[in-house]
């Protein structure tokens, strides 16, 4: 429906979601029938009113249609936008039918019934709804038949008969796994220099001397070893620790240079 076709006057449709004053649907015992969309609802109303689909009393049906939406709203149900578009269409048709047909020349007398497009859509939809019911009954019958139990020859070939969609899904799954793996790697690698330094600071607040050689042995990857090495160098640079080697090629010890870690103090 085009913008210009929307009604600019008439009924106000009170259908917007209310944020305040929410009504708990539990308080209502009314049970609303569920429809597969506005066309389904309209067909139901037409049937219920026992009117002809070819000559819909549009005012009456519109009123009932809107009433249904109001009840939906009262139950705090989300009203799909398609229902609102249909409401607008109905109101538009109704208003158009109320207007007196402008005087026309005789050969133009056959003015189009404003309901025509709606009737066409309803008739079209109705066919598929009936076809869906047929499919339902066929599925019911098929659910009552069974194929043979598993054979050994099945076990040997646990295969799938793939469609393009399966292919797409398989690719998507592989990509999702890849993304997860990468996030994991990044998460692991992001134990960055800054974090390592903070870790070491915490360590030296508790201990005055640490065996650096042993500390290096705890690294789980080359990357972590490198970060650890850089962190130690940083602590040496800011003179928080100094390194001593007790003997040539022996173990390296890190000694805390002062009793107070200035940054830890600053941080409170």
């Amino acid at each position, binding site marked *: 429906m085009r913008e210009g076709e929307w009604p600019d006057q008439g009924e106000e449709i009170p259908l917007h979601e209310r944020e305040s004053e929410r009504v708990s649907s539990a308080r209502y015992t009314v049970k609303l029938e569920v429809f597969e969309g*506005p066309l*389904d609802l309209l067909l139901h109303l037409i049937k219920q009113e026992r009117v002809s689909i070819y000559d819909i009393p549009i005012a009456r049906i519109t009123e009932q249609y809107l009433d249904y939406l109001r009840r939906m709203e009262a139950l705090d149900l989300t009203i799909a936008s398609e229902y609102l578009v249909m409401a607008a269409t109905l109101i538009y048709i109704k208003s158009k039918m109320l207007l007196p047909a402008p005087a026309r020349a005789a050969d133009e007398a056959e003015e189009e019934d404003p309901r025509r497009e709606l009737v066409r859509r309803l008739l079209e939809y109705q066919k*598929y709804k009936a076809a869906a019911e047929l499919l339902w009954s*066929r599925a019911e019958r098929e659910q009552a038949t069974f194929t043979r139990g598993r054979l050994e020859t099945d076990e040997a070939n646990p295969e799938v008969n793939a469609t393009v969609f399966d292919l797409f899904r398989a690719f998507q799954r592989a990509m999702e796994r890849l993304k997860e793996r990468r996030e994991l790697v990044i998460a692991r690698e992001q134990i960055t220099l800054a974090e390592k330094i903070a870790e070491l600071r915490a360590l030296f607040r508790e201990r005055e001397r640490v065996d650096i050689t042993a500390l290096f042995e705890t690294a789980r990857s080359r990357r972590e070893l490198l970060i650890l090495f850089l962190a130690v160098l940083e602590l040496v640079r800011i003179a928080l620790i100094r390194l001593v080697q007790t003997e040539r090629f022996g173990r390296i010890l890190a000694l805390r240079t002062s009793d107070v870690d200035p940054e830890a103090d600053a941080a409170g």
Partner: protein
Amino acid sequence: MTMRAEELKPILEALIFTASEPITEEELAQILPEADRATLAAALEALRRDYEAEGRGLELRRIAGGYRICTRPEHHEYIRRYLKTRPSARLSMAALETLAVIAYRQPITLPEIQEIRGVNSARAVRTLLEKRLIEPKGRKPVVGRPILYGTSREFLIQFGLNDLSELPTIEDFEELTEGASAS
């Protein structure tokens, strides 16, 4: 050296039984190059008649263009007692409507489906794709090149159809519903 229908019949029965899905006459012919096609067809027909005999618990059905042996619907209760299964989750009415539109209007795009149903059908399409009842069938040569959907072989199998022509035409439904709505 060609095979006689009487020799062929038990072999066909064994093959149809072994196949995990309906097996077509073509496939059977490929497996059995020693049989000529006419004899093969005759043997299949004879086998089908055997299964139609009184007092059988099984039937030989034509499904998705192939042959398959199945139990008869009238015994389902006993089989469920044994398998201890309940009927699997049924398709929602939304999914069935969408499937009906696709079955009759294929190949069809999502916007076209929604136009007919008058409601968003994305989730229904996704459900049908995941259940392999429909599959993408190329793209429509219009702006955006939307995917065209059609029913799959699995659709025929799950709905017990040999081919799409077994479904009534959509005009048949028109007549059916006209009577109802005019009341």
